[in-house]
């Protein structure tokens, strides 16, 4: 039968791959179709080599998409996608040594992204590499009103791309555990203060599970709508392996309700999740990679 195939595994090339902070890299990849298809909060699965090591693809949140201008030979503009990643395990260690022109395979855009809410105030909360899926969201939300980004990390090296958010017109509030950049303290403390002034806000968050859990507690106590983007280990990214499931709010042992992070997420409304069952991935790197 004839059917519309919505997606292909894109065999493509790297346009640039640079270290933007110690241990953090930004990779720009040629990605036809991504500018029109990628929505805020979606991700892609990336494969470095057509080999067996590492065997599985790595999921990465889409940071942004864009157009390369037409070049001097009159070739048409080209679409690209950008990811930000932290070097953690075997896959990201391979990735950091790649250069312009090297080949990669990408599958995407995948998953369900953010739902844009019509709230008078929009607050984004990012923890470390967790800010990745918030950038395209911010670019959409600034068209609707005032957007604030609360960005937290352990130290200044974990604070990425803040000036790019500012260029969009986002107000940014930085906090670090050690006080090496911005305010000393937790990003959740900043959130509490903001919500005292802005009780009508909608909140969108991505970061370590402990941070998300705290953000959920703060928002739930104030009846503030919250969407969170989760990270999980996954093999396929398309809802087949069932490796990345999280327990849904209705989940019981008798009536299991498991949601695929890759397919039903990675963005969830806070009320969809069974928070006390939510586990911390073994490390947070912008993908699900483990340390070797």
């Amino acid at each position: 039968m004839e059917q519309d195939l919505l997606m292909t595994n894109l065999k493509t090339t790297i346009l640039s791959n640079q270290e933007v902070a110690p241990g953090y890299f930004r990779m720009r990849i040629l990605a036809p179709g991504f500018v029109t298809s990628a929505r805020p909060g979606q991700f892609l699965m990336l494969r470095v080599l057509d080999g067996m090591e590492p065997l599985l693809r790595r999921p990465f949140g889409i940071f942004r998409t864009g157009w390369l201008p037409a070049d001097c030979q009159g070739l048409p503009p080209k679409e690209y996608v950008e990811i930000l990643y932290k070097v953690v395990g075997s896959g990201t260690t391979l990735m950091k040594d790649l250069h312009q022109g090297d080949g990669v395979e990408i599958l995407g855009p995948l998953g369900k992204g953010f739902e844009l809410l019509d709230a008078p105030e929009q607050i984004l909360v990012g923890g470390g590499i967790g800010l990745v899926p918030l950038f395209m969201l911010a670019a959409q939300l600034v068209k609707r009103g005032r957007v604030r980004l609360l960005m937290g990390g352990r130290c200044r090296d974990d604070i990425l791309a803040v000036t790019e958010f500012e260029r969009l017109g986002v107000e940014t509030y930085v906090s670090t555990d050690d006080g090496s950049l911005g305010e000393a303290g937790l990003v959740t403390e900043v959130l509490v203060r903001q919500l005292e002034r802005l009780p009508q806000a909608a909140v969108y968050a991505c970061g370590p599970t402990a941070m998300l859990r705290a953000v959920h507690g703060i928002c739930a106590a104030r009846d503030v709508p919250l969407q969170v983007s989760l990270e999980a280990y996954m093999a396929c990214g398309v809802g087949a392996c069932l490796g990345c499931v999280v327990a849904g709010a209705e989940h019981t042992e008798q009536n299991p309700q498991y949601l695929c992070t890759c397919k039903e997420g990675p963005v969830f409304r806070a009320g969809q999740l069974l928070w006390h069952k939510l586990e911390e991935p073994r490390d947070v790197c912008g993908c699900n990679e483990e340390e070797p």
Partner: protein
Amino acid sequence: MNRAQQTRAAGPSLAVEIAGLHLKNPVMPASGTFGYGEEYAPFFNLDELGAIITKGLSLRPKAGNPTPRIAETTSGMLNAIGLQNVGIDAFMRDKMPFLRQFHTPVIVNFFGNTLDEYGEMARRLADLPEVAAAELNISCPNVKAGGIVFGTDPGAAAEVVALVRRHLRQPLIVKLTPNVTDITVMARAVEEAGADAISCINTLTGMAVDIRTRRPRLANLTGGLSGPAIRPLAVRMVYQVVRTVKVPVIGVGGIMRAEDALEFLIAGARAVQVGTANFVDPGAMPAIIAGLEKYCREQGVTDINQVIGSLKTEG
């Protein structure tokens, strides 16, 4: 046009037959790596496949194991999903309508927690004309009840196979576990009990440890190892089973590309299942089918059945 020209124009035939089931080619997904089909429909036309095999189904929905459920290992992966599935009723209501639009045969993989549940599932499947065949899972290493309990003891395996065979109308494929001392004992037992075909192998029980936290990398402690790491073992076991039984054998285990599939076919497998490769590349199966056709052309083979069991062990 003479016959040779016709064959050239039409290309080599990849069609095979498994227990009366006509497959346009010998490539199908391994249960549990292809969801219920629809997950991969955005990537290629499912009619390209020889058959579709569903995620393992049970009478009632099953929650599966806690996470982490998967861990990458050298040239492979461990999984302990725990047979999470929507149950046969939800499958027929929500998943089967989608699969009906395709012409390729749908094979339902199923399991039970008890002997009675296996029998009840067989009765239910017998009444479903859309189900072309059933694959009996007596080999899942990741659940306490059912699964491997029936798959490691020849007496228990024969009992469940005979029961299911009595109720089922469609061809019965029995999937064997490699976690036994001698797989040919199990193969003989299920053939004698009425299996129409055998698929082997399921995953090998394995374990991986996080040396930093000193904890197992899977919440279930152990899991099933799949991927290219297990392929030589799978080829050996398929070869042994082919020599033991008369029923057709479907080879499974670490097939990533056409060359891997050909090893199984030459060793005597009538068809192959592709598992972990689907996770790595959603286009893996169409690429394998194209690779089989290319191999046949290059080897001057007009019919894939000439390749099956063509292993040369003498001279």
